Every structure is written in structure tokens, then in C-alpha cells.
């Protein structure tokens, strides 16, 4: 069973590397072959992940004693949902690549990068050694950079990719500093062994927590460290956006939930008000920007800033409820943002741009399936019950209203109010999008659409059907189902994370 753990990481990484290598030959390996290999790779990976989640094996092996890094992989209730999400999104983005191939040659590289990102994320969620966690954290960087740089929107990709990779590497190196400090002072790199402060003084914990939170905050992203995110999303190809929003951002909050909250409780206690305020500002900031943002893809990216604010708020409340809320919010946002980016990515390619100010035929008439998916996504975004987004936000607000006794209650109540206002803003921008894209317009304008200057100058690689069908509809449909399932039966996820959360906080409190 232990082999499953290794396979879950090695299979996507090796398949990805092979695909990239295949592209280097001349003539390059065919697009279809690459795709089939990638699908196989991602499916095997997903199977491994499912097995690992089911059987919960553990691997603990010496790897690099020089830096005290062990090859320690395991699954628990906190990482299991994220692992499943990652594996599922890994399969979906690869499937979707058939519908929306990269705009230039290099299928193998594109698919390989997707797999590498998936593999890196899986490694991150599996890692139980703090330094190994950092290593896995870094694996996704270069492939993601390549995705944006090589396959992104030609207009923005140069600066966006640079911003992404440099910002993130700064964050992760800061995180490394924090991890190393913690590991050295605690005397162990084992994540479970670190839980509970490991005898660090409050000052030490505060400094370390600050460094870690800044580092991870860039990844999350926490306001005001967010400015790489909208740019990266605007430029990234659809698959890249999906992985970025659905997986990469989660690594930041997962890191906070794993390495900061339980490990440095005293430090978090001191910093919680500051971080909480930043998160709340992020919620409002993101929501407000979304109200006036004209690029649809950017708008979704901004909404991520706002939604990750809820997750961070939950984490900062210091209660079990808050942690549960954050973990739920993480998964929910993963599904919803992935869904939205698939839809919006498809729309952007069909429209040849994603400016909301351009008049187009209403989606509900021209492309009812895409329209339906967009409606579900937007409804989930504004936290509609019955869809995934609701529970995370509700629980986050509840946890922030009554934070842990060590937090300033009044301030946190104000934050809860701000978060509640954030849901109103979310409704504002989600419905704004629906009003413009889904409901407005008349079929007569459709004929004029291809002739608009925006459409003329954008590259149009292959004509796509007006509405989603085939793989695209399957991919989108699976995510819609996921969003509904999680919204109707939140207990499935909450039950799976609860024991781990209780265990974590119990050990931390000891």
C-alpha cells in the first residue's frame, strides 16, 4: 500500500516529464498520443490517490539527513479531501485540454505541466515532514510558470508569469525561513511532532508565525499580497487557471492550517487580529473591485481573493468550528472556482475576449448549458445554500463571531459583520455577471459578435461549438454535480475532517 503513496506523486511527475521530453523530439509526439498518455497518467494518479485516501498508508523513510528531511508521506482527514480534489481536478483539466488545446504547438509540454502541477500539489498535501512540505510546495512553481508564460494570453503573459513566479518564490522562501526556524527550535521536522508549540516562547512563536504567515499569505493570497493573482489568472490558459485557483491557492491555506495554527498557537494568538483584519479587508476589497471589474476572468480571480479571506478568517478564529469552516471553504472554493474558470475560459475563447462591456447574445438563449453552469457557479460564489459555497461562509462567520477566548472578541465581531457584508458584495458582483452575460442581450446581436474589433484581433485557433458538449460538458457537469453534492450533503466532508481537526487542536492545546 505504501507504494500507492509514492505512485501518487511519481506517476504524474514522471508522466509529465515524459510528455515534456516527448515534445522536444523532432518531430514532436502527436497531440492525440500526448493527450492519451496524459489522461492515463492522471487517471492512474487519481486511482492512487483514492486508494491512499481509502487505506491511509504511511511512509516514513530517511531521505536527506543533511537537512533533516525525511520522506514522510501520509493521509489524514485534513489532507484527504484536498487530495481528492487535486486528483479530480488533475483528471478534469487533462480531459478539458482536448476541448481547448493550447493556442500554439506544444501539447506535450502543456499537458506535462498540468500533470507536474498536479503531482506537486499531491506531494504537498501528502507531505508530513515540514521541509518536505516546502520542497513539494516548490515543485508546482516552474510548471505553472511555464503554463502561464508559454500558453497564456499573449497580451499579459510576460509580466503575469514573472509576477506569479517571483512573488510566489519570495513567499515560499519566507515560509522556508519560518519552517527552518520552527524546526530547529522544536528539534523535529515531523509535522505531527511540531504540533502544540513544541516549547517555543511566545516571542519566538510570534516571529515565526509572522514570517510563515507572510510567506503563506502570498500564496493564499492575503490582502495586500494578492496582486500577482488577478494578473496570473487573466493570463493563464484555462487549465492553468483552474489548477491555480483550485489547487495552488489551497496549498497556502493548507499550510496555514498545518504549519501555523496548530504549531505556533501562541504566535497565532498574537497575530490573529492583524491577519483577521487583513482577511476581512481582502473580502471587502475583492468584492468591491469585482463590482467594477470589466474583465470576466479577472473578476473571478478577484472573487478568489475575497473567498480565501473567509478561509483565513476561519483559521484565525482559533476554534474548532473555524478550522472546520476553513477546511470546508477550501474545498468548496476549489470546486466552484474550478467550475467558473472552466466556463469562463471557454467563454473567453469563444468570444475572443472577456470584456464585460462588449454586448453579446445572452447566454441563456445561445448556450443554455454553459449558461446553466455559469448560473450554478455564480450562485455558489455568492454563497447560495444547496451549493458548496454556503457552508464555508456561514461557518466562518459563525466562528468569527465567537472566536477563541484569547482573541479580542469585539474586533472579531466587527470582522464577522464585515464578512457578512462581503457576502452581500458577492451577491452584487455575481448577479452583475449573470445580468450582463447570462440574461442580457438579444439573439440579433449574435451575428454581429464575430465582427467586433475585439474578436478580430484575438487569435482564433479552432472554431468551437456555441454551447458546451462532449468533454467540456462532462467536465463542467462533474463540477456542477460536485458543487451541488457538497452543498446538499456537507456532512460528508465535515465528518471526514472533524476527527483530524479535533485531534490537531487537542494536541495543540496540550
Amino acid at each position, binding site marked *: 500500500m505504501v507504494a500507492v503513496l509514492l505512485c501518487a506523486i511519481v506517476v504524474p511527475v514522471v508522466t509529465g516529464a515524459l510528455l515534456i521530453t516527448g515534445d522536444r523530439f523532432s518531430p514532436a509526439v502527436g497531440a492525440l498520443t500526448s493527450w492519451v498518455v496524459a489522461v492515463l497518467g492522471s487517471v492512474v494518479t487519481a486511482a492512487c490517490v483514492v486508494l491512499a485516501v481509502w487505506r491511509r498508508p504511511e511512509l516514513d523513510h530517511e531521505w536527506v539527513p543533511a537537512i533533516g528531511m525525511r520522506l514522510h508521506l501520509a493521509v489524514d482527514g485534513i489532507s484527504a479531501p484536498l487530495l481528492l480534489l487535486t486528483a479530480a481536478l488533475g483528471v478534469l483539466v487533462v480531459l478539458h485540454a482536448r476541448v481547448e488545446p493550447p493556442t500554439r504547438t506544444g501539447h506535450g509540454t502543456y499537458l506535462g505541466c498540468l500533470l507536474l502541477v498536479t503531482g506537486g500539489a499531491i506531494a504537498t498535501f501528502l507531505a508530513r515532514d515540514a521541509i518536505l512540505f516546502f520542497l513539494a510546495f516548490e515543485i508546482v512553481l516552474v510548471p505553472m510558470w511555464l503554463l502561464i508564460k508559454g500558453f497564456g494570453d499573449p497580451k499579459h503573459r510576460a*509580466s503575469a508569469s514573472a509576477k506569479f513566479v517571483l512573488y510566489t518564490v519570495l513567499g515560499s522562501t519566507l515560509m522556508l525561513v519560518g519552517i527552518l526556524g520552527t524546526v530547529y527550535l522544536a528539534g523535529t521536522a515531523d509535522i505531527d511532532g511540531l504540533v502544540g508549540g513544541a516549547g517555543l516562547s511566545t516571542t519566538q512563536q510570534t516571529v515565526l508565525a509572522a514570517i510563515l504567515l507572510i510567506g503563506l499569505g502570498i500564496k493564499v493570497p492575503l490582502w*495586500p499580497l494578492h496582486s500577482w493573482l488577478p494578473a496570473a489568472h487573466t493570463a493563464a490558459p484555462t487549465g492553468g487557471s483552474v489548477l491555480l485557483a483550485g489547487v495552488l491557492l489551497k496549498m497556502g491555506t493548507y499550510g496555514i492550517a498545518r504549519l501555523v495554527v496548530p504549531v505556533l498557537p501562541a504566535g497565532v494568538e498574537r497575530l490573529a487580529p492583524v491577519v483577521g483584519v487583513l482577511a476581512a479587508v481582502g473580502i471587502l476589497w475583492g468584492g468591491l*473591485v469585482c463590482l467594477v471589474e470589466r474583465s470576466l476572468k479577472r473578476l473571478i480571480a478577484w472573487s478568489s481573493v475575497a473567498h480565501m479571506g473567509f478561509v483565513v478568517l476561519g483559521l484565525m478564529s482559533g476554534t*474548532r468550528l473555524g478550522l472546520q469552516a476553513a477546511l470546508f471553504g477550501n474545498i468548496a472554493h476549489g470546486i466552484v472556482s474550478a467550475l467558473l474558470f472552466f466556463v469562463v475560459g471557454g467563454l473567453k475563447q469563444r468570444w475572443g475576449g472577456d470584456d464585460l462591456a462588449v454586448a453579446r447574445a*445572452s447566454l441563456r438563449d445561445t448556450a443554455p448549458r454553459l449558461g446553466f453552469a455559469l448560473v450554478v457557479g455564480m450562485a455558489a460564489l455568492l454563497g447560495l445554500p444547496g451549493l458548496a459555497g454556503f457552508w464555508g461562509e*456561514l461557518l466562518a462567520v459563525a466562528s468569527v463571531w465567537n472566536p477563541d477566548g484569547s482573541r479580542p472578541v469585539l474586533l472579531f465581531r466587527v470582522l464577522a459583520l464585515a464578512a*457578512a457584508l462581503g457576502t452581500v458584495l458577492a451577491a452584487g458582483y455575481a448577479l452583475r455577471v449573470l445580468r450582463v452575460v447570462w440574461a442580457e442581450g438579444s439573439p440579433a446581436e449574435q451575428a454581429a459578435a464575430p465582427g467586433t474589433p475585439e474578436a478580430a484581433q484575438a487569435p482564433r485557433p479552432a472554431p468551437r461549438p456555441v454551447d458546451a458538449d462532449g468533454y467540456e460538458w462532462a467536465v463542467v457537469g462533474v463540477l456542477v454535480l460536485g458543487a451541488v453534492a457538497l452543498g446538499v450533503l456537507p456532512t460528508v466532508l*465535515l465528518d471526514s475532517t472533524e476527527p483530524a481537526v479535533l485531534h490537531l487542536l487537542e494536541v495543540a492545546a496540550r
Partner: protein
Amino acid sequence: MNLGIDAPVQPSHLAILLPALGAVVTLVLVRRSSRLAATIAMGASFLGLFGACALLAQQVEGDVARSPRTIGDLALGGGVTAPLRLLVDDWSVLVCVAVALVAFVVQTFARWYLWTDPRYRQFAATVGLFTAAMQLVVLSGDLVLTLVGWELMGWCSYLLIGHESEREKARRAAYKAFLVTRFADAPLLVGIAALAVGARSTDIPTVLRFWLTEPHASATTLTVAVLGIVCGVLGKSAQIPFQDWLPDAMEGPTPASALIHAATMVAAGTVVLARLLPLVQHADHVRLLLVLLAGGTTVVAALLAFFQQDLKKLLAWSTVSQVGIMLTALGVLPVGSGPDTAITHLIGHAAFKALLFLMFGWATVLVGGTVVPRISGVVRRYPELRRMLAVGFLALAGVPPLVGFVSKDLILDSAAHHAADGDGPALLGLVLLGITTVLTAAYAMRAWLIVHHSTVLERRDDRESFEDSYSVENVGIVELFRDSPQVDEWGREIPVADWVASADHDLEPQPGLLPSTGLLILSFLSVVGGAVVASPLLDLDWQSPDWLLIAAALLLMVAAALLVRVASLGTTYGDASERLPQSWRLLASRGLGVDDAYVGLVVRPVLALARTVASLDARLDRGVEATPGLIRSLGDRTSGVHTRRPTSGLLAVVGGVLVVGVLGVALW
């Protein structure tokens, strides 16, 4: 329904799930066929009604499952429990049946009304979901479930109001409805969180027990929480200051309006507040505020209703007013008494308001609109509308012995009793309710006089000649509105078409058997529904009415009605409000300009703030993007030092030795 008390599926589940299931099946399985969609939707709705009736039967027999499970406890880490159970008690069962009934009638009517609509499928599904959400709120025994149903209703109302999204007005109205209610929901969310987290449970009985009996429960927190909940209720029930979304919501198809106004959306506020009534009674300041706002709304809305030039809008404002009555009723109750008066009014209102809306929908199909000039005299022209419209208006006005009278009188009675005990809010409520009763009678009379106006035939023919003529300029404007022979474009007289003049209306659209039956049931209930007060399910003191109060109210109502009748004499459309200044009517039809206030006070500032934030963020972004340039210029500056000459290197070496030496010796 032979279900054991511990069976996993209870009638309460069925009442909620079946309409939702119908919606899902309609959306997922039905591709094109409206017929299939209608069958499924109506079937599901009927089964939901059946479930509700089964629940009622069980309740009456007393072997009902009091708190059935739903999806199980939420695992929240132990700090707060969320059992997510339903709560079945006397009044909720009654409301449940009323909701199911109205929903079923609306579904059948919509099948007729929206027969040619290409989006009928979505409409039917949304109505199903809407019903399920409302039933969830009605039967919810858990704050979280209440919130779930509550928000879902908001969403469904968004979809229904924006059904005809080709029209900008519909889109705007839908957007506005959702945003206004959502805005009011933010405090509700916080309030629910505060209540639940304080009581460490979201179970409503537990929450009530905690806040009412626990000595160390903070009164301030309770006040804040209840304030939040009342705020949410005011939003959903379209009370001041959130009232303006509801009249706009008339942009939705009429069946949707019937659903929103009669049994679901706006009534949900009453249901939730009735559930949490003990808490409201506990927080005295909030109760006063509630009475003030809801009572004020009843009066203002009734006045506005009187001035409306679109009778559908009149009905909308009347809903606002009537829901205000329910909320006021909750506010004037003495501590410890149940919400049964308000619930009675809710049920009665559901019946007659649904009836009125659907009848107006029918009338719209016949005459093409509900603005006064169009609908004036519709009853004369289509007598089949007469009886049921009359029942509806009488019930609305509160004429004995119709249901409106019964429930309103009970409310007045309880307010009077409580006011007599010296309760301030009750006294305030009594006064406001009294005014409203009179005003209600007045606007109901006005509406009836308009639809009953007799001169409609001639004007209708004028209009038809106007519409049929090829070029408008050939038809003098004077001729248009005079009882003159109609001419074609060459000035020749044209004969009045036979079918227009004849009384035979077979060619006019008629609702089918099912919708007609539904309307009949509704009108029946509007007449005899008052009997519900005698049921054992409601704890009402109906046997000892205050005859003096009834007499006074009736007298005032009759006086108002007479005044309206007198005022309507000699007007073009039988519209009593024509006697009043045009500017008043304009102001009223714009809802007192509250929409402008929303835009000016909330929308514009928020958008301005959003733009500021966006530009700030752009600045931040530029700051980040300037970093490479900064580094480059730093490099350029340092490159000035690197002359590539050995001497500069030597200088650096010596300087470095000095610096390092000083540093080393000083800091060691």
C-alpha cells in the same frame, strides 16, 4: 399515509422534498417538451400537497414525528452542535398545507398562463424549488435550515422575477430584489450566528431555551442578534426601509407574483419571526422597533396602494401592507402568547392574495395589461371574472365573515387587549392597524370600482380602431376618445366587428379545468377560511370578540368605502384617485422615490468606493510592477561604480577591508 413515527421518511420530508425533486427532474430530464415538464411539475406539486395533507392528518391525530432528522448532524468540532432537524407543530402544519395548496394552484395556473413561453420548463422547476424552500423554512427546527430555505427563496425569486430577462426592467427588478433582500440578510446571518454560537446549538428549541432561561446569557448579545434577525425579516417581507423591491418584482410573470406574494417569500418573514417569537418578546426595544417599522409600513403601503395606476402594483403594495399587519401582530402580542393570530392572517392572506393575483393574471391575458386604463371595466366585459374577483377584494378589505375579517379582527383584538395592559408597542400597533384597516377598505373599494367600471366597452373599441388603422394621423385624436363612428385610413366608416361587440367570449382564452378548480378552491377558502380559527391546531380566543371594536372598525370601513365610491363618480375609469393631484399619483407609482434613495444612498457610494478601491489596487499593482524597474535602476546606479577598471576594484577592496575590519572589531 402509513408511516411509522421513526421511519426515515416522514410526510414532512415529502412536503419539502417532492417539489424540489420535481424541479430537479424537470431540469435534468426534460429537454424540450413543455407538456412533460408541466406534468412532472404539477405532479410533484400535487404530491407535495398530498404530503402536507398527510402531515396535517398525522398532526391532528397526534402521532406525528415532532423533529424528524434531515441530513444528520453537522460535524462542527463539538463547540456548536447543528442537528439540522425539522420541527413539526400545530401552526407550522397549517402553514405548510397553505403553502402547498397555493403552490399547486400556481403551478396549474402557470401551465395555462405560460403555455407558449419557451422558458416554461425553467419556470416550473423554479416554482418547485421555491415551494420546497418555503416548506423548509416553515418546517425548519434549526436556524441553519431556516437560513438555507430563506436564501434559496431569495434566489428563486431572483430567477422568477428575471424570468423575462429580455427586458431590462425585469433584469433590474430581479437584481434589485435579490440585492435588497441579501443586504438585509447580512445582519440576519450575523444574528443567527450569534444566537447559535451563544447557545452552542443551532437547534431552535435549544436556542430558545438557552436565551430565555440561561441566567448568564448576555442581554446585549440577544438584542443585537434579534435586531439582526428582524432586519432580515424586514428585508424579506419588504417592510420599511426595504419595501421598494417588492413592487418592482411585478416584472415577473403573474403566477410568480402570486407565489411570491401569497405564500412564500414575503410570508417567510412572518414564519421565521413566529418561530423565534419568544426571543422578540424578550428583547423589548427590538419589539418596539418592529412594531414601529412594520406598523408604519402597513399605513404607508396602504396609502401607496391607493394611488397606484397599475392594479398589479396596487396588489403589490397591498401585500406589503398586509405582511406588515402580520409582523405588527407578532409585535403586539403579550409575552408568552403564541403567534397564532399572525399565522391566521398569513393563511388567509395566502388564499385571497393568490386568488387576486391569479385573477389579475387571467385579466391580463384577456385585456393585455393591468394599468388602470386597460383593466378598467374588465368585469363588465368578462363577467366570469366577477365573482372570484369580488371574493378576493372583499376578503382583502376584511368584510365579515370572510377570512380577512376574521384574522384582522383577531389581531386588532389582541392588540387592544395588550394595549389595555399598558403596553406601548401594542398601543402604537393598535393605532396603526386601525388606520390600515380603513385604508385597506378604501383601496380595495377603489380597485373594485375600477374593474367594475361600466364605460369600458366604447373606449375599448376606440383603441381597437386605433390599433388597426394603417396610419395614425388620419384618425383624429378627438375621434379616438369620442363615441364616434370609426373610420379607416380613407375616412370611411368601418363597422364594429361582430365578435368584439358580441357577448360570446368563447374565443377568449380561458383557464383549463385544473386552474379553474384551483381558483375555485382559493375563493372558497377566502370565504370560509376564517373557520380555521376554530381548529384545535390554533390556540385562539375567538369566542369572545370585542363587539365594540368590530363595530367601530366596520363603521369606519363602510365610511371609507362610501367616500371612495363618491369620489369615483364621473371619472374616466372609475378611479377614485383621479380626484387627487397627479403629482401624488406619480410619486406613489414611483414608490415615493425610494428607489432613487437606494441608488443615491447605497448604490452610488458603493460603486464610487469600488472604483476608488480598484484604482487604489491599480496603484498597488503599479507599485509591484515598478519593482523590477527599481531594481534595474539600482543596478544602473551601482554599475556606475563598476568601471571595469582594476583601480576601482582595488579601491573597493581597501574600502571593504576597512568596513569589514570596523564591523568585525566593533561588533564581535
